[in-house]
């Protein structure tokens, strides 16, 4: 893994670096699996190897593939890095060893999640419980961050009128690769189904709104890659996405407000249902829907924006 990382940094061919970054991402996701973080692995793979690779490729088309040979002195950064590293290593000597069950991390706060969430929230995936309910406010913030990014990118590179059919790059329909087209046609519905499965299965197994959002978006990204952005835009117009992304945040926030109006604190789902657990269920369902809505529309919107911008060049 270190080797991959080093190579990513060393090479001046940014395309290779990007591809290897994708591999590195898959590798780290594998490591996350080994360390029992299934949900994290899920997300890292979807985001690191999927979305950010694609976005980086777009940026590379726009910005050129090769890096100049560095001209400035390299010892100063090296020094900074080494100093930081030394400080960190020094700091780890008093850390409790990895994996020991007696570590403070496992003694305080977390046990409650593991022991009580079954009764309090009633869904097996503790990560989802904590994510959507105990620390639901963080997740609202996270959704807002995604929305902010989409908004920011749109402010920066969006809203261009395309001028005629200027030599489209990446956004173009490829010169009819039949096999790819046919297989994609089969796959896209399957991927969409899988996305829905992940969305609604998130309470039982790994997954949830965010991952589902990325998967749903990636189905359309495949479509975009294979059939060209113009065709995808006809299915899912950009204006729709620009409405859906804020709506997701509002759905999440609105669920919280509903709890507020029904007499609880903000994001308290208990009052939503007849029984507290039922309320939690409903709340988490709605909240995850909001996340999926924002994430999938934002991710697709990002791809549209980059594709259009790159095509203009």
């Amino acid at each position: 893994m270190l080797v991959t990382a080093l190579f990513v940094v060393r090479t001046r061919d940014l395309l290779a670096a990007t591809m290897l970054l994708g591999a590195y991402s898959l590798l780290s996701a594998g490591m996350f699996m080994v360390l029992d973080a299934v949900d994290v692995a899920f997300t890292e793979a979807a985001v690191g190897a999927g979305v950010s690779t694609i976005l980086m490729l777009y940026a590379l088309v726009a910005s050129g593939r090769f890096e100049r040979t560095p001209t400035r002195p390299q010892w100063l950064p090296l020094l900074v890095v080494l100093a930081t590293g030394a400080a960190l290593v020094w700091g780890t000597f008093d850390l409790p060893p990895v994996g020991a069950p007696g570590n403070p991390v496992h003694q305080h706060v977390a046990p409650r999640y593991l022991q009580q969430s079954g009764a309090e929230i009633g869904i097996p995936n503790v990560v989802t419980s904590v994510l959507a309910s105990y620390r639901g406010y963080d997740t609202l913030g996270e959704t807002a961050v995604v929305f902010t990014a989409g908004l920011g990118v749109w402010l920066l590179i969006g809203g261009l009128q395309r001028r005629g059919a200027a030599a489209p790059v990446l956004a173009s329909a490829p010169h009819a690769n039949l096999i790819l087209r046919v297989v994609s046609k089969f796959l896209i519905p399957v991927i969409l189904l899988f996305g829905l499965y992940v969305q609604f299965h998130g309470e039982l197994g790994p997954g949830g709104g965010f991952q589902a959002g990325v998967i749903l978006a990636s189905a359309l990204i495949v479509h975009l890659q294979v059939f060209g952005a113009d065709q995808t835009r006809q299915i899912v117009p950009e204006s729709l996405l620009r409405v859906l992304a804020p709506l997701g945040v509002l759905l999440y926030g609105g669920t919280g407000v509903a709890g507020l109006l029904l007499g609880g604190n903000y994001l308290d789902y208990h009052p939503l249902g007849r029984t507290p657990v039922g309320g939690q269920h409903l709340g988490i369902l709605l909240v995850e829907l909001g996340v999926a809505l924002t994430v999938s529309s934002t991710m697709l919107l990002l791809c549209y924006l980059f594709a259009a911008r790159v095509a203009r060049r």
Partner: protein
Amino acid sequence: MSGALVTCGVAVLVAMGLALARALLGPSVYDRILAVNSFGTKTVLLIALLGAVAGRADYFDVALLYALINFVSTVAMMRYCESAEASTAPEPGTGGSEPGESAEPSP
């Protein structure tokens, strides 16, 4: 039985290493894409194996996702190459950083 599984795990890891080596060596972009794709496939297998060892079917969801992402990113990289070849030649004065890298189409 677990012994056999561990052996398989090692085999997958070694194969991953080999694929990674090819990805690092290049020499052409297509070699890299191929190697990264193959690497991804092996990751899928590894995750499936982990799931089998842990006895949890949940892991297979993750494996499926990996297969999916692998496909998506491979297609994306390919499209990049197709279009980049057409539009942007390596920039003057910037290429040639590594032998064999800059002159893509020739051997």
